[in-house]
């Protein structure tokens, strides 16, 4: 492991009863890299995210972030070390206005410590972040309760809440699902920009062609096991990958 490595998983496993949701997964990620994680439904992608972010404690194995063993730390501590995640099923604060949803991370211990004075008026900062993910400031949308938002907006709200934390590693669980083609198209440049800022990205996605425009490396999971790793082109050439997808997903041409 060299000093450019930001995240290292060592033989990470998690069982739920008899189900081996994640089974001996190892990989390394360098600072600034973008990794795609793909695999059929139930192959352990979300569980893998939960293991990295501390939401689920691994049965065995290690998570090393910035050279520090963070296996099984409480999830809020993982955030404070610089790991932000979004949820596959959006978890907005339904009874709170959209911009106040973003004020929660803007007011968080990490944002206050890390960004300090740069963050002026928190409501204003929140609205800026919402603009970044494509909410129109002058529309009524940022002031509505989050419960009134359509699905695509909720996913973008998830992204805004991640960005508010100014994380070093961003993990997005199926950000694109529930978004329209045009919504995805408008998010892609933002993801580019996030990468240019030197942030490291992990994206779990089913929309492969869009995913492959963002990531430079892909890990494929099947039944909790890593069955392939490499550039998008490399993994899609592996026969086990295509057969794992057959019947469960339609592979869009990358």
């Amino acid at each position: 492991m060299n000093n450019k490595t930001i995240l290292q998983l060592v033989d990470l496993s998690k069982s739920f009863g008899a189900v081996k949701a994640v089974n001996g997964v190892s990989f390394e990620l360098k600072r600034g890299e973008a990794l795609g994680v793909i695999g059929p439904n139930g192959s352990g992608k979300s569980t893998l995210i939960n293991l990295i972010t501390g939401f689920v404690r691994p049965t065995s194995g290690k998570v090393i972030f910035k050279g520090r063993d963070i296996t099984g730390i409480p999830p809020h501590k993982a955030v404070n070390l610089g790991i932000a995640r979004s949820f596959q099923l959006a978890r907005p604060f339904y009874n709170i206005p959209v911009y106040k949803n973003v004020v929660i991370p803007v007011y968080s211990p990490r944002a206050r410590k890390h960004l300090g004075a740069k963050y002026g008026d928190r409501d204003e900062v929140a609205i800026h972040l919402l603009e970044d993910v494509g909410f129109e400031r002058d529309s009524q949308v940022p002031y509505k309760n989050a419960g009134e938002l359509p699905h695509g907006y909720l996913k973008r709200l998830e992204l805004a809440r991640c960005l508010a934390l100014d994380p070093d590693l961003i993990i997005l669980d199926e950000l694109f699902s529930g978004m329209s083609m045009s919504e995805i198209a408008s998010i892609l440049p933002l993801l580019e920009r996030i990468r240019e800022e030197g942030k490291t990205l992990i994206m779990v996605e089913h929309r492969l062609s869009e995913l492959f425009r963002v990531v430079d490396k892909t890990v494929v999971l099947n039944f909790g096991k890593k069955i392939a790793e490499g550039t998008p082109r490399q993994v899609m050439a592996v026969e086990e990958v295509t057969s794992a997808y057959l019947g469960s997903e339609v592979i869009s041409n990358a």
Partner: protein
Amino acid sequence: MNPGYRKERIDRGIKVRSDDVFVLASMRDLLYVVLPRALVIILLLIFPAFQDILGSYWQNVMLSTMVIALLALSWDLLAGIGLVSLGQSLFFGMGGYLAGYLSFTFGWGPLYTLPVATVGGALLSTLTLYPILRLRGIYFGMITFAVPLLLSRVIEVTKILGGTEGMSSLPSFPNTGFELYLVMAVLFVTVYAYRMLVGTDYGLVFNAIRDNDRAVVAAGYDIQWYKAQGVFIAALPACFAGAFMTHHFQFVGMPAFALDYSILPLTSVVIGGVGTFFGAVLGSFVLVPLSELLREFGSLRVVVYSLMLLVFTIGLPEGIFRFVLRKYHQFERLVPMEEASNE
């Protein structure tokens, strides 16, 4: 089709113009906004002046009403964090016993016991509940229900803190008027402070925890620690209430953990409406005097509480306060059916 009239509800002008910040255009608008607030405050303030007319009985009813209102405010704040308490008597008993103990053992007067028992009781209550803050929904409720019952059994069996006899002959307040004004002042401060709190970003975190605690964790908050702070803040007025009643009765004993102190605040908030704090107070001012009027029915009063809980959760879930507020901001007029269908 018979041509008739239908009722149309219209929001009053100033309510339409802005939801929170009132835009005042005339003296009438000003009166409209200020009058209801002023009326309530004036009524409360002059109440003790009518002491002689009312007699000590209704003064005591007023006192217990405000004490229950403090417990109801505390309940409402906890509910705002997603913690449903079925054991407000825990806080009441903690404050009450701490004040009683300090007074009984060291001879302290209310001037010292009230602040110490308020803060100390809140700390003790928070420590007691800390291990179960992880629990959500009904599980938290059930344990809070059990803890005060357990504590009073412990006191009974171990005979500590006076055992079944309790501690009596404690110092009292100068007079009833003083008591009324003191509790009223604390009531005002609590409502004001709680309304302020939920308007800040700090208070927003509490609301967010209720909405979706995992998303708050994902923003890097230690929600266990936040919930503990919330419980402490909620325990303050409730512990004060307990400490106050200890000196009012000049006695503290196992009744401090009684079920009434858990049921009445909860029912009050349901009647008045959750999440506004005004509703909690309003509900107490409806429920407690009513339950006094029904005193002769003895234990049958519980039936009345249950019925009210039932009627309000089903019939008026928003509570009296929001209902009245909505009506106050609207007026109704009759419009002919034809005109209405043209819209």
